[in-house]
């Protein structure tokens, strides 16, 4: 990383120059720096409105960058150790879609764990690629998905030597990392491209004592979500390329789905925050790590809760652990992780990232301070005092290897009919069903619907999880293949 280069923020600088010139706008957006809509100015502030502008010569064009955006992308690539970086303004979802569509066309095989983010399945619907699922395995004491075992990947590659790409979540939501360098080596020997959903691992490129980043491990593409651990504005993201990929081809793919009116608020945010991480990342993530470690110790001293750290590393499926993630197991408190999540918000005014049956995740980031950490620890202590019990919650989770009858694209566009989910056993789904957060599908298009999946959906509805994905807004009915 070139620290002198990283001090630059070319898009921000171009915006500043434009502001000083006081250019008379006869272009869109029609609010004309806010003057056409005083309520917007009141709410967002004059400065924000004045930089909500459209693409123009001095500001470059995201769809075909030649000046300041191009430069910002080059500096970002340097920051991440990538061959090329794309500024993305439609979230990491769009970065994931672009990675898959850039590497897999209709009929191509994509090796992937089943617990991917919804956006990966959307990409399969769009591209027509065929998923080949690898069981990510379950850490049975905690009830969370592990990373990928090398033996499973070896087997999947041996069984599908014609696969085009392999797609990985690294780190997982809970902070678990796979052995990326070994996976990359294994895949590259067979000419398989490695695509990494690194939405929760932005900081790997900037801190120290952190798991290896996808680019450093030699992956071909990586989607990093800058608004998560990076602390950027919501929806901003980078798509990173290794040397093997053609930036021109990937640009074309991105332009299929990304807006032509990219928000300069998001692009400036990418510029400023990349600069901050590049220059101050070590200090920032040392601090974040210290706060997370402190919180882990304090939470573990309450009783019941288990805030896990690097001790769960096992050399294979949990190859590394991201200690900035504050992941907490609740099974021994007698409370579901989801329940703790709800109580924290409803009774303590503390919003955490998400909770599932036996775990919750509190996101610790560049924006946190010790005051907030003390509040979280104290609230957890109080919840345990009020509601904790010795009754250990059991989790019955079994990975059911999905039976894929049609590709997600075929299933999505097939002749279909609406049935009640409870009656959908053994039918082929045309839609996906998921809880958000975390946005991992329970049923994906093209899959045979199992009784276990039906039970899980009904259970999730009962405990109040936010289900979504189907055309039916109440998620009572589901389109299945005729």
């Amino acid at each position, binding site marked *: 990383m070139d620290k002198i280069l990283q001090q630059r923020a070319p898009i921000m600088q171009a915006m500043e120059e434009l502001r000083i010139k006081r250019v008379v706008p006869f272009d869109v957006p029609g609010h004309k720096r806010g003057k056409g809509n005083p309520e917007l100015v009141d709410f967002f502030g004059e400065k924000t409105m004045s930089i909500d502008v459209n693409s123009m010569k001095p500001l470059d064009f995201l769809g075909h960058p030649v000046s300041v955006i191009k430069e910002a992308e080059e500096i970002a690539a340097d920051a991440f150790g990538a061959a090329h970086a794309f500024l993305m303004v439609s979230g990491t979802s769009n970065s994931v879609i672009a990675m898959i569509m850039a590497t897999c066309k209709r009929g191509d095989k994509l090796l992937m764990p089943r617990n991917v983010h919804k956006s990966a399945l959307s990409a399969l619907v769009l591209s027509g690629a065929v998923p080949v699922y690898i069981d990510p395995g379950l850490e049975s004491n905690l009830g969370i998905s592990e990373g990928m075992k090398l033996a499973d990947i070896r087997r999947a590659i041996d069984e599908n030597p014609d696969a085009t790409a392999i797609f990985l979540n690294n780190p997982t939501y809970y902070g678990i990392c796979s052995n990326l360098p070994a996976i990359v080596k294994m895949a590259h020997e067979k000419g398989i491209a490695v695509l990494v959903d690194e939405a929760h691992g932005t900081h790997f490129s900037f801190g120290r004592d952190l798991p290896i980043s996808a680019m450093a491990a030699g992956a071909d593409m990586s989607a990093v979500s800058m608004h998560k651990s990076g602390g950027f504005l919501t929806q901003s993201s980078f798509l990173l390329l290794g040397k093997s990929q053609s930036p021109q081809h990937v640009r074309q793919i991105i332009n299929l789905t990304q807006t032509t009116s990219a928000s300069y608020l998001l692009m400036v945010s990418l510029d400023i925050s990349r600069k901050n991480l590049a220059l101050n990342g070590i200090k920032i993530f040392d601090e974040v790590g210290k706060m997370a470690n402190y919180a882990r110790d304090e939470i573990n001293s309450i009783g019941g809760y288990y805030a896990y750290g690097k001790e769960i590393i096992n050399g294979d499926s949990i190859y590394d652990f991201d200690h900035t993630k504050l992941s907490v197991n609740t099974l021994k408190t007698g409370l579901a992780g989801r329940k703790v999540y709800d109580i924290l918000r409803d009774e303590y005014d503390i919003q955490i990232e998400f909770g599932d049956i036996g775990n919750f995740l509190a996101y610790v980031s560049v924006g946190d301070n010790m005051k907030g950490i*003390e509040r979280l620890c*104290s*609230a957890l*202590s*109080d919840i345990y005092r009020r509601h904790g019990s010795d009754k250990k919650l059991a989790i019955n989770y079994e990975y059911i290897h999905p039976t894929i009858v049609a590709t997600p694209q075929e299933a999505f566009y097939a002749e279909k009919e609406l049935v009640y989910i409870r009656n959908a056993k053994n039918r082929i789904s045309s839609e996906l069903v998921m809880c958000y957060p975390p946005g991992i599908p329970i049923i994906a298009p093209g899959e045979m619907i199992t009784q276990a999946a039906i039970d899980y959906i009904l259970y999730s509805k009962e405990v109040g999880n936010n289900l979504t994905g189907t055309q039916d807004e109440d998620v009572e009915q589901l389109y299945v293949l005729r």
Partner: protein
Amino acid sequence: MELWFTENHSEHARFSIKIDKHLYGADSDIQRIDVFQSPEFGRFLTLDGLMMMTEKDEFAYHEMMVHVPMAVNPAIKDVLIIGAGDGGIVRELARYDTIAIMDMVEIDEQVVKVCKQYLPQTASSLDDPRLTIYYQDGLKFVRHAKEEYDLIVVDSTDSDGPGEGLFTREFYGNCLKALKDDGILVNQLGSPYYKADAAAMVRAYDKLKHVFPIYSAFQAHIPTYPSGHWLFGFASKNQNPTNVSSEWVKLDIDTKYYNTALHIGSFALPNYVGDMLK
């Protein structure tokens, strides 16, 4: 030349005090600390520009925070004090020979140093042998305490400053845990008058309500605080706030503001305040 200290009591109302001399001013790790000398109020302490105490009217605040719970239960022995770096609470508590332990948790060591140097009127008892001062976050301290105290006095800054964590449900819940069965918690709740203050006060009181089986609010007149009308919370597991012990009068403690009739009266709130707290 005229020098005035001004604090905004609302967006549209200010309160000013003429200053003779700026005695101390510095930023600690936590906040801005200032001490002024004034003709009207004597010396006074501000944190982040907000009035904490003046020599002229601090007696009202400190006496009410201490003698109200002590008169309800004169058997109180072990006391936890949160905040209170100026020493005023400790000074009032130290007047009871029956008190055995005073643990004081102040987040900012610099406040205590400054008060010892410039505000001897309140800081005089800060070397009482029964007192131990812990320089740490109050929220953390109570999290690690269990059924240890008869009384917790929370003398904090406002809910949007460093004292934020002391107006939360998690704090009150952990205080409940840190108190013995007869335990009492007293805290400053702020003013019911200006709109933003009133909203914060109601939020804090609502949280207290959710945690303690017995809760109530009482008031005092403190001229240099916004609106001059100040509320305190009284919360406990089983102690009735207006049940003043006949033992207290026998202690013959000389007070300038507090008396037992006022004690009972201080829980009678104006209607508009009572409505807010319903």
